[in-house]
């Protein structure tokens, strides 16, 4: 252990605090972490309480970090302990019984509390909020003994609580102050449809009702409203709202408005004290949803660990109601005003409703009811304030004809979307049993998966899926997922990552419902590649998701030693470099020096623990001989020396290699550059082959001399060097964006079609420029891996050096 660890105290053992801790643990081990939580439980998923109430999940199911997790990371956890004050002079936190604990830094993540209406009788027995496991247990108990319940508050939480109580067999009336349910998340139209749907499911409503008193003796027996009417009930859930839990901040003299005031790095008004989650107020906004908490936690973790990060600039929030069989979604601005252009479509027969709001022709908000297939896409478009175009309108609203665009909406439904909310059956599962077990009727699917077994509300969708799978192109071969962990294909996964802004392999697998939570050796490296391709500037490469060769930046051999291949740009070296290679090979007792197939030198048989020393003494960049990346650029002698050469192939080869090296690609990538049509560097078996002629260059793509030999196709001819570089960049970027992981260009060209590729990268100048810009952007973020490893001593020792234990126990 090195030095003394900084003491980091987390006040609040909930989702916001612990997800921030998880992010911190990824970045550093320099903190000694202590967590205080008022509840007697480890960190659990508060969002899932609705499912616990409904009975589809148990308390154990919703624990996110069990007690072992805290132990394993050496985190001290005090459950059932409330911190009441921060004594910043003494650098200590004080708990309710007066015990003091020292701190260097604090994160306040106390969340929020149910807002209990301060009406007479609010403290009677049988009146609860709906916020935590304890409330949930009270509700489960009440349902066993009592019949009539009221939920005060017709917002998200109130409706979920009401539905849960109905499931538990109670008669439930939702009492709402306003005329519209969920008025903060929905427009009046969607509210009305939601109310009708929930009435069908057995919930009663009393709208525009102001609660003035709770009646009864010890225990609540009724509610009196402002108009003097009375509702007789034996149980009341208050779900009128939440208020940030700011007690500790107020007590400690910090700046508090509605929530604890923080800046764009989650810093409070007190030095060394940060705050994250529902208890905070950022730029005047307190959030009561989960997504912003993760965004805040990510930024705070980086900031507190001294890692550079963009500031937090607020979140675009969206709402989904977690009630089986009722699909509601809203995001951004959704209440019409004169400044909005409104696009809407209501279908009373299908009971669906869709509305998109534009301001200055930019999408700023949307509401969906009944069919929320487009939610992920809309969320993304609105987050980016996308301009509405004819094309987008067509794809979102169906093109004219008053009809619905999609012949079948199940086609575009994501695989992980729950079709049967009662039994948690996804579209992917249903497609899977149809294709792999040969089921052909809804009843068979019901028997096999449980879909449609409970409320039957999803039967039409299941029928549609059946029709869609058996009907057209789907009939024979089962849809292949990228590996055994998922039934989703590459394009679907990439679309989901883009739409949902997923950032880590774990998150992808979690959100998209992988069957193995951490994936396998096929999908982990693939997802890591897709994430980096989508967000070259922000993706943090996961060493643990890379194959051994890319993780170690060297090729492993069968005995566990490695091969080192330095760069030799364009296959050209110097006597001085050769001498250095020879000296290092002698010094480190390299087993063999071999000339590779791609005009470079293999230093075979370097011990793992010598790798970094060999790199340092060679002082040459990595040749990436191990990577799914640009490997070699093979050249002929060219016009510098050759009597036939018309172009300087050595210089062009080196230029291309320097320009595009180090960038992750779907598979390994090889070039050849020739000075004349004699083609001595064999352009026909390379991913990109270039042949010089007396007036420019000819470009060939998709060649392969390896496992499945394929001759390259002529793509086009260009006149200038600049044009050549631009085309190379556009081809590589288009391959990066559309290629399957591990798919060589020889397969890619056949799958995409040469004509199609030509139409994108050659004929469409605008697209070519855009691709080039994107590859340039990605190239700004690559770094020489050998030097990077040498600089990071701590990481180096953990990756390249073993631990020797003395023989004494």
């Amino acid at each position, binding site marked *: *252990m090195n030095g003394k660890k900084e003491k980091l105290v987390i006040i609040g053992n909930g989702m916001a605090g612990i997800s921030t801790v998880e992010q911190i643990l*990824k970045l550093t*081990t320099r903190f000694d972490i202590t967590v205080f939580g008022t509840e007697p439980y480890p960190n659990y998923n508060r969002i899932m309480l609705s499912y616990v109430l409904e009975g589809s999940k148990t308390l154990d199911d919703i624990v996110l970090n069990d007690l*072992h*997790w805290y*132990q*394993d*990371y*050496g985190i001290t956890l005090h459950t059932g302990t409330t911190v009441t004050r921060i004594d910043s002079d003494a650098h200590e936190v004080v708990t309710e019984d007066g015990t003091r604990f020292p701190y260097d830094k604090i994160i306040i993540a106390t969340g929020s509390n149910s807002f209990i209406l301060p009406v007479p009788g609010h403290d009677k027995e049988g009146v609860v909020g709906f916020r935590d496991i304890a409330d949930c247990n009270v509700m489960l108990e009440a349902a066993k003994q009592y019949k009539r319940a009221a939920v005060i508050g017709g917002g998200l939480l109130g409706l979920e609580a009401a539905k849960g109580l109905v499931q538990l067999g109670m008669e439930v009336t939702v009492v709402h102050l306003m005329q519209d349910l969920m008025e903060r998340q929905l427009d009046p139209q969607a509210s009305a449809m939601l109310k009708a749907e929930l009435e069908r499911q057995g919930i009663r409503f009393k709208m525009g009702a102001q609660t003035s008193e709770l009646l009864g003796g010890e225990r609540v027996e009724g509610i009196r409203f402002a108009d003097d009417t009375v509702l007789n009930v034996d149980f009341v859930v208050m779900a009128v709202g939440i208020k940030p839990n700011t007690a500790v901040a107020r007590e400690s003299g910090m700046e508090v408005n509605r929530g604890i005031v923080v800046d764009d790095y989650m810093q409070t008004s007190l030095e060394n004290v940060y705050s994250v989650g529902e208890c905070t107020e950022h730029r005047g906004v307190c959030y009561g949803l989960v997504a912003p908490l993760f965004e805040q936690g990510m930024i705070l973790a980086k900031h507190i660990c001294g890692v550079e990060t963009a500031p937090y600039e607020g979140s675009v929030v969206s709402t989904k109601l977690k009630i089986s069989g009722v699909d509601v979604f809203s995001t951004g601005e959704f209440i019409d005003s004169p400044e909005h252009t409104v696009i809407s479509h209501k279908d009373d027969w299908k009971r669906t409703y869709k509305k998109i709001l534009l301001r200055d022709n930019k999408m700023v908000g949307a509401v969906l009811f009944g069919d929320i297939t487009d939610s992920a896409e809309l969320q993304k478009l609105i987050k980016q304030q996308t301009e509405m175009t004819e094309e987008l309108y067509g794809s979102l609203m169906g093109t004219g004809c008053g009809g619905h665009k999609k012949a079948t909406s199940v086609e575009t439904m994501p695989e992980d979307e729950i079709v049967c909310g009662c039994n948690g059956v996804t579209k992917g599962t249903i497609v899977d049993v149809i294709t792999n077990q040969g089921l052909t009727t809804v009843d068979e699917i019901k028997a096999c998966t449980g879909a449609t077994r409970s409320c039957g509300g999803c039967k039409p969708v299941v029928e549609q899926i059946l029709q869609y799978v058996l009907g057209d192109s789907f009939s024979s071969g089962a849809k292949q997922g990228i590996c055994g962990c998922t039934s989703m294909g590459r394009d679907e996964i990439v679309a989901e990552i883009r739409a949902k802004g997923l950032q880590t392999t*774990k998150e992808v697998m979690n959100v998209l419902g992988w069957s*193995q*939570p*951490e*994936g*396998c*050796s096929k999908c*982990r*490296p693939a997802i890591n590649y897709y994430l980096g391709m989508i967000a070259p500037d922000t993706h943090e490469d996961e*060493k*643990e*998701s890379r*194959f*051994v060769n890319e*993780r*170690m930046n060297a090729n*492993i051999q*069968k*005995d*566990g030693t490695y091969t080192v291949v330095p760069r030799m740009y364009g296959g050209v070296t110097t006597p001085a470099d050769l001498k250095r290679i020879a000296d290092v090979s002698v010094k480190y007792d390299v087993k063999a020096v071999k000339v590779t197939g791609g005009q470079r030198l293999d230093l075979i048989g370097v011990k793992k623990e010598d790798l970094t020393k060999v790199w340092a003494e060679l002082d040459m960049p990595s040749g990436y001989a191990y990577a799914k990346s640009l490997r070699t650029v093979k050249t002929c002698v060219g016009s510098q020396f050759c009597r036939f050469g018309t172009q300087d192939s050595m210089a062009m080869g080196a230029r291309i290699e320097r320009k595009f090296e180090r960038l992750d690609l779907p598979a390994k990538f090889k070039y050849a550059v020739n000075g004349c049509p004699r083609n001595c560097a064999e352009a026909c078996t390379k991913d990109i082959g270039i042949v010089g002629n007396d007036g420019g260059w000819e470009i060939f793509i998709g060649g392969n001399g390896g496992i499945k030999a394929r001759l390259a196709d002529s793509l086009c001819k260009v006149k200038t060097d600049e044009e050549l570089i631009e085309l190379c960049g556009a081809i590589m970027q288009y391959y990066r964006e559309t290629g399957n992981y591990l798919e060589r260009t020889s397969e890619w060209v056949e799958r995409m079609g040469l004509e199609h590729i030509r139409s994108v990268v050659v004929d469409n100048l605008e697209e070519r420029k855009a691709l080039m810009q994107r590859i340039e952007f990605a190239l700004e973020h690559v770094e020489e891996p050998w030097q990077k490893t040498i600089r990071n001593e701590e*990481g180096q020792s*953990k*990756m390249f050096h*073993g*631990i*020797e*234990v003395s*023989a004494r*126990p």
Partner: protein
Amino acid sequence: MTTKQSGTYFPAGVVEEFLPRIGRVVEIKDQQLAVFRASDGTIFAADNHNPHPKGGPLAEGIVSGHYLYDPLYDWKIDLTTGLVQAPDNGQVQMYPVKVENGQVWIEI
């Protein structure tokens, strides 16, 4: 289960010396072990010898939950038992591990 019993526990460093899901070689009494720290914090110690007939190391494999995909031949190994998963066959010798106050102990 081929876990050796009744050996001696040796201290093999602190938990932080093992990166999550990235194996590390630990040498105890001339034994080469591959030590893995799973995402849930569980630490496994395996004999660093690939069960494949061609041999080689295990430490550089890809860790998923409590499974390991070996770095050379992509065999899937259950780290709790050392058993190679179908369609391949074999078993890796596993060693008991305990973690106390962040200190990793391996029994040989």
